[in-house]
């Protein structure tokens, strides 16, 4: 399964949110999208799911134009995990994860034993099986996010789009959830496209990175090609030192605060 965007543009009235962005994602790949606030990351994601129709350019899901496909068909192939939304009613965890089967079910049919198997397998994968009967409203933010991920897995997607899925989580939960996503690319050959805020996290987990700024793609490539001192400066306007992660070997950014300016100026990073 593959997702390709060709020269996609999207405007909100006169404000350009996404400007001529092309990208592609294949099965088993983990691609991170980085960029400052308001750089068009979320809008790009919405164009990729077909929720927004691009003003120019096109998005192809396995060669088919995504915004012309029925949402149900798209949902059979693409699952989305965003930040937790407002849930108005106390759905149980089981009911919530079961909703992931909706794209595969006919309108008036009941879920089959196979659907149930898939749902329980998904809950198992994110470790929420023991919460099955609990109301999602009683769960912590981290637990709730794992329920939403289980629901996405129950969709049996070929492609997973993530919109800052870990931004409100503590380091423990964050690594746990990112590990789940990474293992999906290996075990299930799912392609993951993740909008991430945390540059270091993105660098650790992504095979490829895309950097957006003001709606434009300003860099794309391996983490070492995108996470550089120069790009950190030009995109985020921050002074940064880039070092190698001692265990993973990917680039890690250390930000230099303003008050320390004078002392760091003369020192040059060793690598």
């Amino acid at each position, binding site marked *: 399964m593959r997702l390709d965007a060709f020269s996609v543009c999207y405007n909100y009235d006169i404000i350009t949110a996404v400007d001529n962005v092309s990208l592609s994602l294949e099965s088993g790949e983990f691609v991170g999208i980085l960029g400052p606030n308001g750089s068009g990351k979320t809008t790009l994601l919405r164009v990729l799911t077909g*929720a927004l129709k691009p003003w120019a350019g096109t998005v192809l899901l396995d060669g088919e134009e995504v915004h012309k496909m029925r*949402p149900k068909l798209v949902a059979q192939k693409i699952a989305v995990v965003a930040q937790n939304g407002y849930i108005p009613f*106390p759905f149980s965890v089981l009911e919530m994860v079961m909703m992931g089967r909706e794209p595969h079910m006919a309108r008036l049919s009941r879920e089959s034993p196979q659907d149930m198997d898939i749902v329980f397998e998904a809950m198992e994968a994110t470790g929420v099986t023991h919460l099955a009967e609990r109301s999602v409203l009683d769960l912590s933010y981290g637990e709730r996010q794992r329920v939403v991920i289980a629901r996405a897995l129950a969709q049996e997607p070929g492609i997973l789009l993530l919109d800052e899925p870990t931004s409100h989580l503590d380091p423990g939960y964050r690594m746990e959830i990112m590990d789940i996503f990474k293992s999906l690319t290996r075990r299930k050959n799912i392609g993951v496209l993740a909008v991430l805020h945390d540059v270091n996290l993105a660098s650790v987990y992504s095979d490829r990175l895309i950097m957006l700024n003001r709606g434009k793609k300003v860099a794309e490539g391996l983490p070492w090609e995108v996470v550089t001192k120069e790009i950190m400066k030009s995109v985020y306007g921050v002074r940064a030192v880039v070092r190698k992660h001692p265990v993973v070997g990917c680039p890690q950014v250390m930000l230099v605060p303003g008050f320390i300016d004078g002392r760091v100026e003369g020192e040059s990073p060793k690598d």
Partner: protein
Amino acid sequence: MKPDPVTHSAYRAKRKKSLVILTILLFAAMVIAAGVGAVTIPIAEVASILFRRIPYISKYIPNIGAQDVYETIILEVRLPRILLAVIIGGALAGAGATLQGLFGNPLADPYIMGISSGAALGATIAISYKLPSFFPGLSSVPIAAFLASIATMTAVYFLAGVSGRVSMDTYLLSGVVVSSFLWAVMSFIMMLSGDSLREIMMWLMGSLSNKGYAHVKMAFPYVGFGISVLLVMARDLNLICLGDDEARHLGVDPEPAKRIIMLASSLVTAASVSVGGIIGFVGLIVPHTVRMVLGPDHRLLLPASVIAGGIFLVSADTVARTLIAPSEIPVGVITALVGAPFFFYVLRRRKMSES
């Protein structure tokens, strides 16, 4: 780990069992209601008279000494009113459950979209100008109320620009504004219509007195059709109440689905308000109570609310017509008086069972 078979089957059995129990309760409430009144009729005889009217099972029901008088009272006087209570109660509770899901707001009720104000204006005009009726057995009031509420529904729909892409908030706001405009017009007409004021007030409070099969026939097709549509959309409603994006990610295009759901619930509300007046609280409290007991899954919540709404309104109406007989209390007064304390009872019990 293999899926837990207990959880699996319990999950499905719960649905079936609750609906069966509610249906039995509904029939019980109808039978009791048919026996209670100025003339009290023993339950066995009521059951015999009623169930012999149902095809297929009629031959198994013994005819236990039911006198013709009883039969006339039950079939001609009480049954149409009971059926109407079931239809209206079911319609209001079903529409309420739907709108609470649609707006993702547990405070929504069927009247939130201004339909009741349209119906009220129609009824007020028909009553104070004594419009002539064209249908046998049906005064001009329900007809005028229905036409006006459909007109209101259309107006709110287009004023909010729902044909384009618009948020539910705009729709709600449009409903509120149209509704206060209509109430103003109605108050003006009421002010000028000295002698029919009491009749208008009675209508506004909601009452099922002096209703016959003509009213049942008028309301049932719209309510039946609308509720069927809503039941088919129950699954979409589960996703829509989580937000437009979530719904889309799970394969439901939210805009057309919301439009269908809105129109169907408006139709159901319009039909029931036209024949029963503005009966408050049913559409708010019944879905709430059902949700607290059975959970928020609309595939169970909607049908269960419809049946429970029927039970609730039949019971409330029975109290309304017997409590200070031969006078009647408007049933809307009873639903509010009984509904509010009952609601808190359920709320408390739930809190206690949780701790």
